């Protein structure tokens, strides 16, 4: 009995985590029109999904946005982490603290303040406003990921490079960036995922010219759960898993 109790408990926890996902995947292959009854296997909702041009367009929009947001925040975040790690300057602690403020503050606050700012400067809501907003909330995550790697960096590596004749810039290019690469990739993937499934901030700062997937799904669900959403969810899951495996693979290969 005492041996089984922990196992049953563990199974319950995992069931709670995975059963909904499993249900989603199974029902994405459900032939029935109503979401609750099983009507046999079918790929019709995948078909319907790809026939829905607005949906496919939203998917592409989301991917492009996530790609751009992840890349921009990795470049800015990588350099920020480098500056915070390498150099001593006035206000360094404040700058570091402010990153955490952005990370910890409620998303809704960030969303409202971004919207207010975009309205003040008169920016048309669309791709640019979304990109700026996504870079804003992705940035702290990238900085923290990269800084964690840098804090474990042996300073002597950089001294060794200079000792062997490399100038400041060459040292960064040939030693620092390669050593930071796994963290940069991890930060990029994190930013990509964050951007891809953001709803709250995006709701506020997107405009009719650029519809993205999470908002599209959200509006679909509001008028009733369509089985297409199950198919879309399953595809996103497979995509996320692929990204996860990829990132783990990269980290494993670059270990040490």
């Amino acid at each position, binding site marked *: 009995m005492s041996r089984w109790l922990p196992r049953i408990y563990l199974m319950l926890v995992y069931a709670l985590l995975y059963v909904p996902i499993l249900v989603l995947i199974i029902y994405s292959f459900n032939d029935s029109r109503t979401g609750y009854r099983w009507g046999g296997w079918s790929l019709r909702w995948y078909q319907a999904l790809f026939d829905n041009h607005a949906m496919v367009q939203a998917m592409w929009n989301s991917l492009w946005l996530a790609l751009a947001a992840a890349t921009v925040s990795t470049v800015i975040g990588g350099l920020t982490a480098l500056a915070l790690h390498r150099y001593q300057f006035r206000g360094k602690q404040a700058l570091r603290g402010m990153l955490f403020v952005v990370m910890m503050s409620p998303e809704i606050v960030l969303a409202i303040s971004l919207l207010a700012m975009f309205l003040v400067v008169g920016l048309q809501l669309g791709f640019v406003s979304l990109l700026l907003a996504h870079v804003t909330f992705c940035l702290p995550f990238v900085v923290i990921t990269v800084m964690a790697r840098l804090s474990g960096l*042996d300073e002597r590596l950089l*001294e060794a*490079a*200079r000792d*062997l004749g*490399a100038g400041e810039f*060459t040292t960064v290019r040939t030693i620092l960036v390669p*050593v930071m690469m796994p963290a940069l990739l991890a930060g990029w993937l994190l930013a990509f995922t964050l951007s891809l499934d953001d709803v709250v901030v995006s709701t506020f700062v997107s405009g009719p010219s650029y519809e993205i997937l999470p908002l599209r799904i959200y509006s679909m669900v509001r008028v009733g759960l369509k089985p297409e959403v199950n198919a879309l969810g399953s595809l996103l899951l497979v995509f996320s898993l692929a990204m996860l495996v990829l990132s783990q693979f990269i980290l494993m290969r670059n270990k*040490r």
Partner: protein
Amino acid sequence: MNQTLLSLRGISKHYGGRAVLKALDLDILDGEFLTLLGPSGCGKTTLLRLLAGFERPDSGTLTLSGQDITSIPPERRPLNTVFQQYALFPHLTVAGNVAYGLRMEKRPEAEIAQRVTEALAMVQLAELAERKPHQLSGGQQQRVAIARAVIKRPKLLLLDEPLSALDYKLRRQMQIELKRLQRELGITFVFVTHDQEEALSMSDRVVVLRDGEVQQLGTPREVYERPTNLFTARFVGETNLFPATVKAINGDRIALDVRGLSRDLRKPTFQVSVGEQVNVLLRPEDIRVLAADADYGFAGTVIERNYKGSTLDSLIRLEDGNEVLASEFFDEDDPAFDYSLGEQVRVSWVDGWEWMLPVANGDAAGALDG
């Protein structure tokens, strides 16, 4: 050999108000193996970093072969460093690490390949060229670090406690190998260590540092046998100290009262006057342990004995409470040679094997331990 390669004049360095190096003067000779020896915090690593260019002195000049290099950055100094924890580039292979310096010089790839092969052959790592540093053992990483540092044929190689991470046996082996490399390459080595045994066995000259000041500069033999002060004496090896009073001076001999016993010894090189205190220093291997019924020497009791393989080390407490460490070689004629704890003995030494130092202000007993 005897030409000055690098000379330091009045080098000082402060960290947060604390003087790490105090107006240090030093001449490093071309082709020599020079060791900077001292306890941690003596400034030896700072001195090495100043030579490499990672630190700038607060004042003073560094002159390399007549050229002032004080403000030249590390990447443009013709000297290279072997770092304490090796600092191998983790993302590059062994060959990539070794080639790095030549790549920075933008040498043609064919030349790089050839010189890397030579350098790896020199440290006996030719077959591991494509490995990554984390796939190597500590000793192998050490060799890569050395190959990487010597491939640019520097005038001077700086080694920052390069053997401290290795186990005893490997360390002995690397000591011999480093000496061989230094002979073969003809490069001047500046070697930092806190291990006096390593310093004595490897160096042509030893610089003993303490609190940012040179205590003594000399050959290992000079430093060990003729230390200029108590600090050096104690740092480079075990020392027995006998305080003594000068009773009389007769030509080149002086009569001393050593703990109540009279000894007639050679006059030291420094000035002495009658009634003055001097310290008589003896290394444990210069101590002679005699039977209790001997008619001279200090009476005492054996309170500890350590079998060291080739020697027997014994600690003897004298009647006045002071302790003397004696290290005696085993005598083949007397295989049973040993002491029992509590055994009564007498302690003496052969005339002329002692070394005398004046009693200086800072030499209060106990103040210089460690």
